[in-house]
């Protein structure tokens, strides 16, 4: 299997990489390049080169996980490329092949899948008030804690319909609609992506000495959610 050919099957690569002249404007505008040791110009150059060894290194590295997908690069590229879309194609392939589990940042995909992924697939929302646990979100401050502790009354006060029937903010999505969303995930490869993330994460967790126990690798989840080796920033 040629990696560059696999990448080329992703329609976002066709859109995101037409012809890069390595001018570096994308790097100049990039919020990730501001703080991470990250250079989208380099990403475009490697993928364009079709160098299989360097593409595999990318797929296994932290580097492809630094982008914030703000797509500021799209506006500025004089050739109409979008390094953010190249990144999306690389991340998809990295997960398909299990390479994401080889880097600290890549391994985080399991934590995102377990929360955001399962929210959308089974509840119809990407984010839910129940996720905003103060210990996991200290940045939300005392007001966030007050909202979390008093969800029903606070959301009622501001006109939301938290877990209610019918229309409105934070309403309960009707079961027949959730069934349709699940069917969409089943048919379009959404659950297959989830299974890939779980499968390769399990292998890596065991390799790293974490055990499933009775709690589906909660120690591994905690590790990937909080670990930072502090080697990601520019020297």
């Amino acid at each position: 299997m040629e990696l560059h050919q696999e990448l080329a099957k992703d329609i976002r690569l066709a859109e995101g990489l037409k012809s890069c002249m390595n001018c570096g404007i994308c790097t100049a505008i990039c919020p990730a390049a501001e703080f991470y040791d990250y250079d989208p110009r380099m990403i475009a150059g490697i993928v364009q080169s079709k160098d299989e060894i360097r593409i595999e290194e990318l797929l296994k590295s932290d580097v492809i996980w630094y982008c914030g997908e703000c797509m500021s690069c799209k506006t500025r590229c004089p050739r109409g490329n979008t390094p953010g879309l190249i990144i999306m194609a690389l991340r998809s392939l990295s997960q398909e092949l299990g390479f994401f589990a080889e880097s600290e940042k890549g391994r985080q995909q399991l934590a995102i899948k377990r929360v955001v992924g399962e929210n959308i697939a089974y509840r119809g929302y990407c984010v839910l008030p129940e996720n905003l646990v103060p210990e996991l979100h200290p940045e939300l401050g005392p007001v966030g804690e007050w909202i979390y502790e008093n969800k029903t009354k606070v959301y009622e006060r501001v006109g939301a319909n938290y877990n209610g029937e019918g229309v409105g903010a934070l309403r309960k999505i009707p079961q027949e609609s959730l069934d349709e969303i699940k069917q969409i995930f089943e048919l379009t490869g959404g659950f297959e992506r989830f299974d890939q993330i779980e499968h390769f994460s399990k292998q890596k967790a065991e390799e790293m000495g974490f055990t499933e126990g009775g709690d589906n690798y909660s120690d591994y989840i905690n590790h990937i959610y909080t670990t930072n080796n502090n080697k990601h920033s520019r020297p």
Partner: protein
Amino acid sequence: MKREGKIQVWQDYQKEIADNHYFYVRSCIRQNFFPGAEQTFLRILRSELGKDIYENAHHTSCSGIAYHADIVPFDTIQTIVARQFALMTEAGYQNLAVSCITSFGIYNEIIETWKEFPSELEKIRNFLRKATGREFEVPQNVAHASDIVYKFREDIAIRKKYSLTNQQTGKPLKIVEHIGCHYSKMFPAKGIGGAEFPNVLVGMIESWGGEVIDYPERRHCCGFGFRQYLVMSNRGYSVSNSKKKFESMEPYQPDAILCNCPGCPMFLDRWQYVIEEMEGKTYGQNGQGIPVLTYEEMAGLVLGYNPWDMGMQMHQTNVEPLLDKMGIEYDPDLKYAGNDGKIIGKLSL
């Protein structure tokens, strides 16, 4: 250049926004953090402007946050979006009104993909048919909710109870505007003013009496970065990008920050709290933070709505400095009260 030529050039920066009959799709971020803003938008359209805006209980998140965190494949999000379009088609609507900027970018990306790759559209029609039995039409008009408020900004100005004016000095309030990246950076033609001259918030501020403040990092991302905020150990990215903006705007002494994306006001609001906790640094006047508002909240204040009805007590950075400057009357004792008038929960604020 002759005037006709200039008009032609600027036509590329304009956008057609439907006048009425909208199918509304909510934002999962806004519902969690500023649900009162969405309610305020609906109230303005229905009660003030007499518009028809329809909501359907069966629509879901577009899955955009999951897609941009790369755990949802493109086929999956396309089909979820197609389902939203099917709900709209079945309800007899053609104009989509989108609460979220991430969703707005997603809808535009998918519609443009279908134009460029018709085989994708057929594939997604088949997926949706098999999964749900539904059929759909592509919307005739896709507007972000801020586009709609922009369109009717003068109608709001006619009804205003308060102006974006400092009541003590009589001078216009200095407002910094922050446009969500996915509003027009990806598809400039889909935003008012494109990516270079986004006018959607500027138009509101100027119509309601305020002064827009330019500053070097005006167009820099707030730092959400999807996975860069979702995972705790990545949040340095998010706060650092917000801080870059605060440092850049601070010398201009803004009275408020105005946003059109659901995520940006959350981050620009909360990260001010975090920076104060970590470094003791505040960016507003008199040791306070800079109030961060959604455009729905600002429109509501101009129209004289009660800030606590709109959910402005859910901000971490206090909004009172702005309310006081505008001369808005509010009851501080009811800030954290419920519908029964009693204080909700135990306050440690």
